[in-house]
């Protein structure tokens, strides 16, 4: 169960350092809630881990594998990092059916059509496989986004406030799903949220992002830090 | 399958863009090689096509035409022929304006060819050395709007357009182009530069409306924007057929020594260095023949045949009853530069 470790990460946007000497370890096989104020840089951190943003300094390492290193001039392309990502706005491709989205992402991991159908079944979308995102409800879209993130058999699962726009009942059922899927991921599952309810339901480990740096914390939502 | 269909459509489109129409096989069953003749035509497309399709049906030779737009009649094609002198693309020039075509002969653009089919055409309508042959002629007429002008008040002479009662109420086509350029240059040939320039100045002083072309003159008279227009008889015939509120006067027919109205033959010219000289000569044979003149006379073109035994257009009086302006066509052609300079100076065009 590889850990994801960050060392001295620096990411600047429009001249402003969003992450500055950011270091921390996300333990493998565990769910880590990434907590912080709006604008703290949580989404930027996830993007940097996924390789969607190039840091100006630092290192990102997954187990023994270096994903990014400024000093060694190493920057693995996003699709080779073994990352599953559930975006804040879900980023479901509107022109592809549910099964096609999953099948496409899972192809390199040997997931065929049957595998994709089975994965959709496991998240409760078995009967909706031929629908496009626009034909799914909010909760169904969330499940599809999760299924797509898992399709590539990722080593790390990143979720950027995926439940921000669903109702409470759906949220509770998705909590259960997320606990189940994170068990399938060998490396860390990193969950960004503002919701203390989500954090309480999912956190096995907590890191706070403050001033561009990662800090360990117990239960910051109880202290009203959100 | 969709991709295959797209590939087919793409290939068809690209092929059609090249548009190298395959000439039909000759009816005489010759070697089977495609034959074509390139004709630059300042004659109106819909009239010229009658002749082209008749020729194609008769001989199987494909005619590849290039036309002028109305606003740059004849001058556009003559300019192109001059520009292509070193590397001609045209075989034949069918000019609806004799004067500009004759000017080409002076520049060595044309090659001599006296068609046997033109034997019946009077000598004054063709070059003695075969550099041009006239056929299918038009006359200049006055067209007036019957809702604005009574028949008794209609002008009877082109000279009347300089009179006060027509101030700002008459239109002429741009004298740099088409048959108006012939008409204007004919004044210079007939009267000399000084008097002709004075006449143009009097038209300008009388607020002549300069239209884009003959058909623009026809339209302006037809819808009443002007009361009178100077144009060709075939343009006037279009307005009459469309039942516009117009009537025609053939100018300068009355009086002791009437000026007469210009008679403007089309001109057929063989281009020097034509890519298809044999086909060019055969086409000219057809173009200047009685058969082609019959087509032009019977059609909406309503052009007067120069072969004496071919009947004239039905809508118009016979040619032998019309007083024609007595000018030498070569002299008219020589007066074009002087006329162009005067028009530029007087009208600012």
């Amino acid at each position, binding site marked *: 169960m590889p850990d994801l470790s960050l060392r001295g990460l620096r990411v600047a946007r429009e001249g402003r350092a969003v992450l500055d000497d950011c270091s921390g370890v996300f333990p493998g096989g565990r769910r880590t809630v990434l907590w912080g104020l709006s604008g703290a840089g949580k989404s930027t951190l996830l993007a940097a881990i996924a390789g969607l943003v190039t840091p100006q300094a630092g290192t990102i390492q997954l187990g023994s594998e270096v994903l990014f290193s400024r000093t060694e*001039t190493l920057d693995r392309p996003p699709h*080779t990092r073994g990352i599953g990502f559930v975006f804040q706005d879900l980023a479901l*491709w509107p022109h592809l059916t549910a099964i096609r989205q999953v099948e496409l992402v899972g192809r390199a991991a040997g997931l065929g059509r049957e595998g994709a159908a089975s994965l959709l079944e496991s998240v409760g979308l078995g009967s909706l496989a031929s629908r496009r995102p626009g034909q799914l409800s909010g909760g169904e879209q969330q499940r599809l986004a999760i299924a797509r993130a898992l399709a590539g058999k990722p080593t790390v699962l990143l979720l950027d406030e995926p439940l921000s726009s669903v109702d409470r009942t759906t949220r509770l059922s998705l909590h259960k799903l997320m606990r189940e899927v994170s068990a399938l991921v060998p490396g860390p599952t990193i969950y960004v949220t503002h919701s203390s309810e989500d954090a309480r339901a999912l956190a096995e480990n907590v890191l706070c992002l403050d001033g561009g740096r990662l800090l360990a914390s117990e239960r910051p939502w109880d202290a009203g830090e959100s | 399958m969709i991709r295959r269909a797209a590939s087919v459509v793409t290939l*068809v489109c690209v092929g059609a863009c090249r548009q190298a129409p395959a000439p039909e096989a000759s009816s005489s069953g010759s070697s089977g090689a495609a034959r074509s003749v390139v004709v630059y035509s300042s004659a*109106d497309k*819909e009239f010229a096509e009658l002749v082209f399709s008749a020729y194609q049906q008769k001989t199987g030779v494909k005619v590849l035409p290039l036309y002028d737009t109305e*606003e740059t009649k004849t001058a556009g094609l003559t300019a192109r022929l*001059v520009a292509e002198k070193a590397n001609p693309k045209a075989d034949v020039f069918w000019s609806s304006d004799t004067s500009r075509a004759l000017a080409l002969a002076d520049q060595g653009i044309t090659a001599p060819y006296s068609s046997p089919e033109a034997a019946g055409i009077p000598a004054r309508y063709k070059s003695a050395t075969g550099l041009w042959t006239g056929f299918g002629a038009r006359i200049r007429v006055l067209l007036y709007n019957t809702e604005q002008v009574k028949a008794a008040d209609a002008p009877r002479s082109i000279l009347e357009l300089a009179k006060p009662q027509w101030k700002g109420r008459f239109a002429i086509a741009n004298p740099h182009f088409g048959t108006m350029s012939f008409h204007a240059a004919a004044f210079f040939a007939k009267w000399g530069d000084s008097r002709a320039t004075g006449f143009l100045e009097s038209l300008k002083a009388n607020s002549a409306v300069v239209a884009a072309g003959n058909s623009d003159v026809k339209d302006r008279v037809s819808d009443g924007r002007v009361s009178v227009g100077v144009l060709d008889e075939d343009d006037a015939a279009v307005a009459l057929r469309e039942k516009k509120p117009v009537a025609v006067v053939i100018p300068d027919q009355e009086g002791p020594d009437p000026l007469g109205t210009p008679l403007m033959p089309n001109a057929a010219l063989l281009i020097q260095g034509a890519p298809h000289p044999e086909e060019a000569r055969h086409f000219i044979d057809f173009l200047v023949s009685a058969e082609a003149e019959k087509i032009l006379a019977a059609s909406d073109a309503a052009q007067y045949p120069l072969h004496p035994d071919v009947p004239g257009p039905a809508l118009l009086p016979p040619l032998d009853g019309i007083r024609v302006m007595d000018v030498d066509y070569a002299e008219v052609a020589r007066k074009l530069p002087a006329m162009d300079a005067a028009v530029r100076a007087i009208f600012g065009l």
Partner: protein
Amino acid sequence: MSQSRILRSSLAALPIGLVLAAAGLPIVFLLSRFGAAGMSIDAASLVQTLGFAVGGAVVATVVGGGAGMLSGALALPGGRWLLAASCVLIAAPPAFWWLGATRVTAVSWGWVSGPAGGALVAGVALSPIPILLVHAALREMPSNLYEAARAALPPVRRITYVLVPLLKAPLVGGFLLSMILLLGESEIPFLFGFRTAMTDVVTLFSQTFDVGRVIPLVMPLLLVVLGLGAMSASPLLRSVLASTRGANGVVRCPAPVFLTVLLAAPAAAAFFSLGGYVLAVLPALERGWPGARLQLSAVLASVAEPVVCAWSTVVIVVAAAYSVRSSAAMRWCLRAGLLLFCIPGAIHGIGWIGISQAIGGLDIPPGVAHASRLIGLPLLGFAIAYSRMPRSLEDAARLVPISPVRRAFVLILPLLAPSLVAAAALVAALVFADRDVPSTLMVPGASRLMLDLYLVSANAPSARVGAAALVVLAGASLTLALAAAGPLLLLWRRRA
């Protein structure tokens, strides 16, 4: 590291840079000939030209802007259909609509004459440009902006002090674009009998076929058009590239039915003109089709040339600009493309003829002149669509382990397809409708339906003109459908 990044960015921008440079060759040629020969400018007819262009642009902006505001801000019965019908006007040049209207002989058209008449007709014909820009801006605007005005101000004040200022960019952009297009218009001035710089250029070039002699006339027009194009780039790009994700558009409120009549005005003009052609044909139908002599080769070429131009410009742009789609270079490319588009097709054609004469008389196909002018349109369509695409969609695509080419075709380009379809259709429409380029660059024996219509309209009976116009309309419809079908293929397999 940053040097290699600069090098990588420069290399990425090289393909689109080369494409735009190639498209700009005729203009560079004309400018260099002007500079080298030390010629003077002949601007004799520039004032009248500007008067015509400004007048027409004012008409287009008032008519189009008004219609756009009506359709974007009000819930009018049949509003969407009327909006779509208004856009028919852009499918053909202003002269086409005028020729159709004048077939209606019951109306006396004598009062519509001179530069004022020409500006009125051309302005109405170009009104779809401001209509579309204004309507799109209203649909993109955050709803609460106008809702706040509705809560606080009566109608006239809220339109004057809130709505119109909010629509400043599309209105200014629409005005400038209409003006630029009118500067390049020659057929309306010919028909209405007044001189403009463009008619001087076309006339003199036809008289002489000498590029050198026509350059003093081209220069003032070219400089004015380039200046206006540069001025219009900012408002146009601001209108069309505005990224307002999350905005729902102005909430349409119910309105009196009579306003529908105002919205219907541009569409009515189009259908009046078409009706003129139909009325001209009907009486002659009892004797059979009034026989515009249709040549299959002319029909095929008239349809194929615009379609091939549309598809090839879209493919070239996508291939060349994809690598710079999110870089700062894209804005500069857009400006260059817009400038090329602003220059009239006839000037592109003359420039290409000059180049061909300079290199020994090589035949340049009309499609090359069309493409050099219109390459900016697919570029703009590509940029608009990409700017509106949520970035997370591309981020998600980057995580998929497939090749970059497959990623582009399967995941990104289908999202841009609607905009590419619109761009392809617009390129095809403009190529189909053009008269100046074919009349200068076509080889003997070739013809185009639109040019044939102009040639026939000179002296043919109305019935024949009407028949030719209806054939042109059918050809245009087929052309647009085929042109749009190309980029639509991007979506076809993906939806399987």
